[in-house]
């Protein structure tokens, strides 16, 4: 993945996250059932976006790091 692609990915993911956790993106998740991992759906929804962001940021860092190591030092 190129540096540009990974920045677009991050931009898209965090924009989607901002929409998914506020009005109107959160409306479909504003419910109690189904329970996931014992949590009501709205609660799980919030936690899941954070958990996935760990993975997204990890990918971002791998690509950015490769780019920095290769071209600037």
């Amino acid at each position, binding site marked *: 993945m190129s540096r540009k692609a990974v920045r677009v990915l991050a931009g898209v993911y965090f924009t989607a996250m901002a929409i998914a956790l506020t009005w109107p993106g959160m409306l479909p998740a504003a419910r109690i059932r189904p329970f996931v991992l014992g949590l009501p759906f*709205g609660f799980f929804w919030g936690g899941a976006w954070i958990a996935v962001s760990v993975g997204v940021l990890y990918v971002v860092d791998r690509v950015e790091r490769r780019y920095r190591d290769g071209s600037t030092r």
Partner: protein
Amino acid sequence: MERWIVITLIIAAYLAVTLVIGLMAGRKATHSVAGYVAGDRSFGLLVMYFVTGATVFSSFAFLGGPGWAYSRGAASFYILAYGVLGMAPFYWVGPRIAEVGRRLGHVTQAQLITGRFPSRGLSALIALMSLIAFVPYVTIQIRGAGIVIEAVTDGHIPLWLGALVAYGIVIVYVLVSGVMAVGWTNTFQGIFMVAIAWILGIYLPYRLYGGVGPMFEQIAAARPELLVPPGLDAAGAPWSWGSYSTYILVSAVGLMMWPHLFMKAYTARDDDTLRRTVILFPTFQLFLIPVFLIGFAGVMFPATPPDPDSILPFMILRTQLPAFVVGLFCAGALSASMSTGDALLHASASVVVEDGILQFVSLDDRVQRMLMRVLVLLTGAAAYVLALNPGASLVQLLATAYGIVSQLAPPVLAALYWRRATTAGVVAGLLSGWATAGFFWHYPALKPFGMHEGILGLLVQVPVLVLVSLSTRRQDPAHLAGFFEEAGEARP
């Protein structure tokens, strides 16, 4: 031995360890302003991770979080939503701030802004507004510490005394060791609060309901309105989506604009450390999940606490836990309070001296450090007096302060990324943003859709900043070259 004495001894041991770590830490720093404020830019990944996490999550999260989950249900999810959104852009912005800071010798946020937009008045204004936002924030922390100690010792140690001892210790180590003490004590406190939150967050639902799922089944049957976002408002009526959404947005924008967090960019050893801190931050953030579980565990609890913010200590005391566990909980809550309070006190003193006073008089390094110490003492004393008066909910106080700090985001971004921005534009923008936020804070009934006053301020500020900048004279190219030199990303 009586129960409260055992608890008090554990708290005393915790406070003693904190004090020793804080005092030891300072011996490694140089006796300079850069050493006192930015730790000689020496923090490694472990310290940065816990400093950032422990500083972000305070009494607000540890006591206010369960308080909201308990009384307002799903409304508390807003606290879960904004942290990562606010932190992620720092992966790119943070190293850039640090690079400009190393080159031009910045240790505060206002120095970055006025390094690009030279104005003594602007610098002093930012220092003043930061201080206004800081005092209620410190007050929350001190009050949180006092509440916990009073509750778990059955009132044998009253709020005023508990808060005085805990913050007396904070002030001693901040005075002696500066930011190095904040760093190393926060590492210790961060580990502590995360561990306690996860243990109690899993343990309490099991002990009281037989599990997390069964707990929510019971709440869904008895009080379903609590579990549907956006939850309830302070009066118990359904909260508005406009309010819920803008609370998230203003907190995301404002999070890294808090001077005490922003200044962490100057303490990292190198850019990689800073970036990895951002990458790992969401793992720290997940500790809010058990924190909310603790609050939800209180919903079906037979007795009612005196006020929602004390649900955590209230329940802990009534679940027949061993005194040892109660003592540890208390230490966790104190960690949350003190790890933010120390950073706030330290940053407010640094900001007032560097950005306020030094703009108008020149002082040597030694006098500056002394003045900062005097200010740590004064701010702490002012917040302590305020903390003794019962006030609004912990979360509510902090949400209001976010309206002030979030207005600093456009000037910071303009300084780093928009060459056409001018000093007049930034000053006009900031003044209009603060005026708008202040107006709607004072007349909440006028807010459209119940939107947070900070977002309304930003909606006014951004166009004002852009229009005034475009209609005033472009900045001197030589000045821009000096500021941006090597500041851009290295190009292939």
